[in-house]
């Protein structure tokens, strides 16, 4: 140990010197990085201090530091709470549907755009599908509520043309998930396709030319060149998506759900919101949030490891 001690020290010392040299040489670049670091510290790291209330009997008057420790009591409460488990199940089911239908949608869209030869038609179509992304969730929810309205909504009007009774879509639990997932696809698939279009643009054009000379048609080129070439991007996006499995779009759920559909629509985030902010049980809500984060962390780590093992592609 004594032999290695000085070497370790000098290596660490060298590393510091190198870092300071880098900072001096490229200070402009580090300066540009600073706002992002500050944002992370203020909004993502500092709040972690408050996570300890998940293990405390938190009181606003006593503050985070002075509230007494209660160990895992809140987690036991969560475990015994049927509504929490219903929210967890709903979150997983909605996320699974999102993954199944919402994840491939932008990929399919990008592949379709790539096949469009007419430039002006392509540009127009792209603009139309990108637009919903820039509309506030409140407006999106308003459009959905109007479209599915039993009295004047376009969907029920169409149903009426076939002589059928109107369906109360937004008050029936079985309709919440398809409407929610469909809305998400409508809102984000277009914008999400940009990443895949960029990946497609990066595919070496001579691969296609070589395939053309070899006799491949467009369908074969899509399956044998485009999709395998953008697979690393697809996997990276999938890992990110899996990391967000427990983060179902809170805004849209809260705007579209109502007590009548809680059976299928109440997700962990909305449950945390109701418990934490509306019922004042901040400690229990913090425990649920922490549970959420741990599940997401495990999922993203597993997805990353699997992807690295099987496809040599990983986030880190």
């Amino acid at each position: 140990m004594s032999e290695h001690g000085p070497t370790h020290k000098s290596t660490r010392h060298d590393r510091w010197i190198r870092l300071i040299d880098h900072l001096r040489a490229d200070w402009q670049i580090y300066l540009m990085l600073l706002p992002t670091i500050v944002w992370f510290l203020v909004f993502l790291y500092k709040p972690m201090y408050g996570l300890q209330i998940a293990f405390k009997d938190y009181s606003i008057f006593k503050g985070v530091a002075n509230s007494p420790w209660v160990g895992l009591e809140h987690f036991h409460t969560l475990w015994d709470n049927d509504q929490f488990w219903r929210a967890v199940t709903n979150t997983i089911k909605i996320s699974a549907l999102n993954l199944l239908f919402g994840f491939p949608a932008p990929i399919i869209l990008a592949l379709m755009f790539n096949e469009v030869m007419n430039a002006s038609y392509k540009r127009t179509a792209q603009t139309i599908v990108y637009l919903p992304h820039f509309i506030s969730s409140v407006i999106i929810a308003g459009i959905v509520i109007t479209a599915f309205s039993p009295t004047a909504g376009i969907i029920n009007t169409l149903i009426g043309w076939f002589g059928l009774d109107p369906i109360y879509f937004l008050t029936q639990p079985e309709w919440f998930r398809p409407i929610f997932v469909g809305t998400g696809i409508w809102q984000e698939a277009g914008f999400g396709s940009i990443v895949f279009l960029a990946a497609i643009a990066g595919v070496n054009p001579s691969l296609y030319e070589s395939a053309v000379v070899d006799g491949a048609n467009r369908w074969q080129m899509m399956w044998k060149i485009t999709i395998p070439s953008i697979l690393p991007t697809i996997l990276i996006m999938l890992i990110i998506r899996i990391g967000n499995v427990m983060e179902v779009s809170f805004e849209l759920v809260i705007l579209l759900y109502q007590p009548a559909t809680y059976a299928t629509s109440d997700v962990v985030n909305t449950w945390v919101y109701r418990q934490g902010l509306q019922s004042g049980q901040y400690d229990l809500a913090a425990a649920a949030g922490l549970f959420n984060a741990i599940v997401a962390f495990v999922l993203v780590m597993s997805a990353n490891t699997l992807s690295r093992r099987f496809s040599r592609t990983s986030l880190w």
Partner: protein
Amino acid sequence: MAGVNLSSIVKSYGALQVVHGIDLEVAEKEFVVLVGPSGCGKSTTLRMIAGLEEITAGDLTIDDRRVNRVAPKDRDVAMVFQNYALYPHLNVAENMAFGLRIRKMPKEQIKTTIDDVAEVLGLTPYLQRRPADLSGGQRQRVAMGRAIVRHPKVFLFDEPLSNLDAKLRTQMRAEIKRLHNRLGVTSVYVTHDQVEAMTLADRIVVMNDGAIEQVGTPMELFNHPANTFVAGFLGSPPMNMVPGVLTQTGARLAGVEIGLGAQYHGQAGREVIVGIRPEHVTLTATQDSSPLPIALDLVEPLGSEALLHAHFGAAELVFKAETNGDIAHLSGVSEVHVPAGLVKVFDAATGRALEGQTKAAKEG
């Protein structure tokens, strides 16, 4: 096997014409190299033969069949690309099998074909590797293997060696030559490297600005360039060009008269450009040579020979000289001797060689 015939081929992008009606006949089993500077239209011409670019006007026939409107896959050509165009997600065997699978060749036959070609190209140990795990030379061999397994009528090569380092390029050049001798497939090869063109070609097509400057065997082009462009393009270092005026038996260059071959005699007063190959001069006088005084700037030793960079009037010249193991004796060189029979003369106004014109005039 098949010949390729280009007749008045034109390529335009909108109003911009980039290939101006070229005519070229590539005979069966011939290895023809299109060479020229960047932007001269050589790759566009090759891509038109492959079917990757539409032909604006003219006729293209392969094996006596007009193929202007025939899809690339039905032209029975195989192309080797500059950046190899290997599918990164497929291993070597799968890359080579790609075209055969598309054509629905039976699996057993694909395997046999790939094994045979891999053996020829020395790729057998690498069949299960992906392109990322191969060296540049190996990737290039895979790209060639992918073309060979198809047994096409015509091979098209688009600067296939330009991504390789100098040593590997020399090796691969020899391999391509050997392969062509063995397979005897009609080949059209595009390069901007005149050494590649000289070493590989049965015939060289020198292109410039969308037109063909000259077609001929490497030695024909080297010894009898049709114009100053061809003369300057082929040969390394390129031919030295010095402006001058013809006299009765020679040419006057900035006050110095040198002797010329008999074909140039009797045109006194004509303004010309005199071309002297760097390797044709000697440091001592020989029969029929004329001394040319030079101001030596630099001696670049290359081993057995050295490059002498010098000035003659306003012209910058480069000559080759034997070192005989030492360059000390070269630093004092103040004149070189130009052999009359090896000097080329071009018309100063048109840049065209006087040699052919004189011969034609005499024959006429």
